């Protein structure tokens, strides 16, 4: 194997050769997707059971019988759980350990589950202290996990319910054992999404029991088995292969999505879009005048708004000015009337004063001459004999002068008011005319449609630019990821190739070991067992090929055990593998196994732990301590006929 490896190119170099990309680029891309170009898997970290304890109450025929079980098992090697009869709880012990380890029970009967009230199992994980302790309430676990370098430095993680329990165990165990969540992808909501199989999937590798209907792991079929197998055997490049495979799928999916987005651009190519854009730009430029037109339009609009305001203001001012002018005019009229009145009355008085009174207006009697004389001499009214008031011409003149003066002022004020009105009228008219002109201009511009067109072209251009931008981004992303896809795909292919290469050899070794074990375990006429990378098994017995389903349950069980042993051994001998070294083997003697074969199985199992001292193995079966040859009785819990283990 070392030879083979020496002939291998470094992984990045091989990918570079396949893609034509530089090694630097390849390393960058692999790093970007966290694809490890590594040929080995990290070594295993051991997992051991230190102490098992549980208690509760059995309910049999409405009678309650409290029970408790306690077992210190802090040693490597084989531990036995034996009972002379069935149904005395030997499986339960292992199942409880598994429950504590996984966070959920696997094959614990409901009856037993109901009986159990308290569980307390201590482990050692890669040298660290791990204690799982919980009560069972309404069938649900409720407790605490303590984990740390020592009992004193441990931190507590509390859980309430199976889900929380599982989460806690997953978190602690995967990191404690240096196991990655098994990378996988599945279809969810029509899309391939990456997800990680958790701790529960790994734990399938610890247990073989009558109920597992597969070689290794719990479920039949699918990637899971293959992965578990490969991880535990530690075929190099497996991890790289699966990482690269996952990212290939994701990249391909993204690419498909981008292609769909490009379709959203109306099926036009980038060239088409760019040609359109050039056309529009040309149009916009040639109607660069349109810019001018829209400027004109805007300034026309602004002017119109300003003028409208101005016209309104002027109109208001004019109204006020007219009111004022009317008042001034009225004052002038009055002043004129006063002047007239003075002049007219003066003239009239003068005229009538010259006239000789003739006859009394009242009685029409003639007015005598003697009365006239009296008037002239004594200033006595010839009509009524009252003292005549003579008008002082100077006073009259003074009054007339004042009236004239007032009229002059009034005329001036009136003229000013009139002039002001005229000025405003002119301004108003000018503004109205200008407003009219601007209105016409606006109409013309609007009719010519220049500004609107420019707007439309503009928004078309913006739209196209947006589309081009989007298309370019998509294509760029496509190009970038095309490169990534190229490299990742090549990495996947290269890793797959390497896995195949490595696994062929490893599987051959394991298969021959399984064959040897199967023979020893008493599978009749077995000539060869070929374990395949995909966890399928070809059994040649009696000259013909059998598949797994063709085997009897007993043969299946033995094959399973043989496989576990061979895998475990295989992993160790190859210096590869990450199995934590814990095996729980439940009832290997159940299925029609003859005692000598059972003996064979047991001695093989015991031998395994002798050869590889790092293993801790629990075997539960119906039998007597002597069946576990080589296992000291201190390491066996035995229930005689008529008694129970707990």
């Amino acid at each position, binding site marked *: 194997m070392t030879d083979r490896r020496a002939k291998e190119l470094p992984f990045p170099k091989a990918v570079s050769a396949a893609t034509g990309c530089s090694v630097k680029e390849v390393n960058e891309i692999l790093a970007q997707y966290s694809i490890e170009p590594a040929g080995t898997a990290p070594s295993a970290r051991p997992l051991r059971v230190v102490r098992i304890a549980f208690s509760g109450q059995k309910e049999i025929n409405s009678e309650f019988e409290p029970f408790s079980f306690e077992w210190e098992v802090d040693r490597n090697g084989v531990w036995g759980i034996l009972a002379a009869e069935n149904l005395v709880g030997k499986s339960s012990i292992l199942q409880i350990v598994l429950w504590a380890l996984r966070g959920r029970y696997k094959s614990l009967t409901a009856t037993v589950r109901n009986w159990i009230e308290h569980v307390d199992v201590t482990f050692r994980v890669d040298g660290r202290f791990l204690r799982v302790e919980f009560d069972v309430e309404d069938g649900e676990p409720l407790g605490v996990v303590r984990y740390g370098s020592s009992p004193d430095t441990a931190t507590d993680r509390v859980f309430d319910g199976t889900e929380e329990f599982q989460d806690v165990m997953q978190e602690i165990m995967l990191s404690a054992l240096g196991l990655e969540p098994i990378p996988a992808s599945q279809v969810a909501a029509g899309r391939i999404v990456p997800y990680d199989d958790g701790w529960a999937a790994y734990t399938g590798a610890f247990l073989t029991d009558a109920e597992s209907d597969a070689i290794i792991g719990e479920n039949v079929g699918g990637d899971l088995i293959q992965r578990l197998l490969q991880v535990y055997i530690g075929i190099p490049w497996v991890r790289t292969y699966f990482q690269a495979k996952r990212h290939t799928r994701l990249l391909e999916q993204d690419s498909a999505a981008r292609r769909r987005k490009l379709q959203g651009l109306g099926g036009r190519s980038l060239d088409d879009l760019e040609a359109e854009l050039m056309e529009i730009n040309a149009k916009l430029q040639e109607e660069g005048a349109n810019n001018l037109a829209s400027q004109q339009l805007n300034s026309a609009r602004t002017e119109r708004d300003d003028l409208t305001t101005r016209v309104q203001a002027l109109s208001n001012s004019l109204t006020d000015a007219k009111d004022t002018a009317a008042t001034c005019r009225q004052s002038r009229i009055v002043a004129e009337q006063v002047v007239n009145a003075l002049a007219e*009355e003066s003239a009239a008085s003068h005229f009538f004063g010259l006239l000789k009174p003739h006859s009394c207006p009242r009685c029409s009697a003639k007015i005598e001459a003697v009365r006239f004389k009296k008037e002239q001499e004594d200033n006595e009214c010839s009509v009524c004999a009252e003292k005549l008031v003579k008008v002082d011409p100077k006073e009259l003149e003074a009054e007339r002068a004042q009236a004239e003066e007032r009229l002059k002022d009034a005329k001036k004020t009136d003229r000013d008011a009139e002039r002001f009105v005229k000025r405003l009228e002119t301004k108003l008219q000018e503004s109205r005319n200008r407003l009219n002109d601007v209105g016409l201009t606006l109409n013309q511009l609007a009719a010519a449609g220049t500004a609107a067109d420019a707007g439309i072209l503009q928004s078309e251009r913006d739209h196209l630019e947006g589309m081009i931008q989007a298309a370019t981004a998509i294509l760029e992303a496509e190009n970038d990821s095309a490169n990534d896809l190229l490299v990742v795909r090549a990495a996947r292919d290269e890793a797959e190739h390497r896995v195949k290469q490595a696994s062929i050899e490893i599987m051959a070794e394991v298969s021959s070991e399984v064959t040897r074990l199967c023979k020893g375990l008493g599978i009749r006429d077995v000539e060869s067992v070929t374990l395949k990378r995909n966890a399928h098994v070809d059994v040649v017995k009696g000259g013909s090929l059998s598949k797994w389903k063709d085997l009897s349950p007993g043969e299946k069980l033995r094959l399973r055990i043989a496989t576990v042993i061979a895998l475990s051994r295989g992993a160790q001998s190859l210096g590869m593998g990450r199995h934590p070294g814990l095996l729980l083997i439940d009832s290997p003697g159940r299925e029609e196994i003859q005692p000598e074969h059972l003996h064979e199985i047991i001695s093989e199992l015991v031998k395994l732990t002798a050869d590889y001292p790092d293993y801790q193995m629990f075997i539960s079966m119906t039998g007597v301590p002597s069946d576990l040859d080589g296992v000291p009785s201190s390491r066996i819990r035995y229930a005689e006929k008529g008694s129970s283990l707990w």
Partner: protein
Amino acid sequence: MHIQGKRNAVRILFILAKAGEPVKRSAPADTCLVVHAEKRLQALDFWMRNPDYLASEILNQFDADPTQKKLLKIAETVMDGDEPDIRRLAMQRFLFGAWEALDDAIATLSLPGLVKMERKYSADGSKIRQTSYYLTVEGKTKAAELEKVEPLDWYAKRAEVVAEIAGTRTGNQLKSLQYQVAQYNDARHGSLIAPIRAEVEERLAKLQVSA
């Protein structure tokens, strides 16, 4: 002011001089012209004192006979400039009977023997049937003299226009006419008569254009 409404008397004098009809043989001695009925005198005086109403009547007559171009000219003169406003002497009351008394003016005129007023009473003497205003020969002479005196000559000229426009229509006819015009122009606000200058100006302007 020392001067008391003598110009009212002047105005009435000219009305009698221009609008009076020749007397009949039954008239008092030394009279030559007469205006029968206080109403007619008042109506004529109304047109003297409200140039816009006078102009309105002139335009009516022009409308009736558009060949009379001189009517338009007269109307123009009457409405000239501020004349209608300056020459307006507002009538305070306009109701039947509550007409402005002309008594003072008549007294001023009859004292120097220019005008004689005569009243005819009903058979039982309880009602005034008619008041007649006679212009004496002396009155006519003095009126002719006064016609040349500024600024009183205006009244003589205006009295001529009024006389012509009034024609031989009775006081009742003239008064009702004047009422109608006031009514038509919404110028009759209860007991006041408002000017109708603007409306008449507008009308005149239209007619000037078309003439």
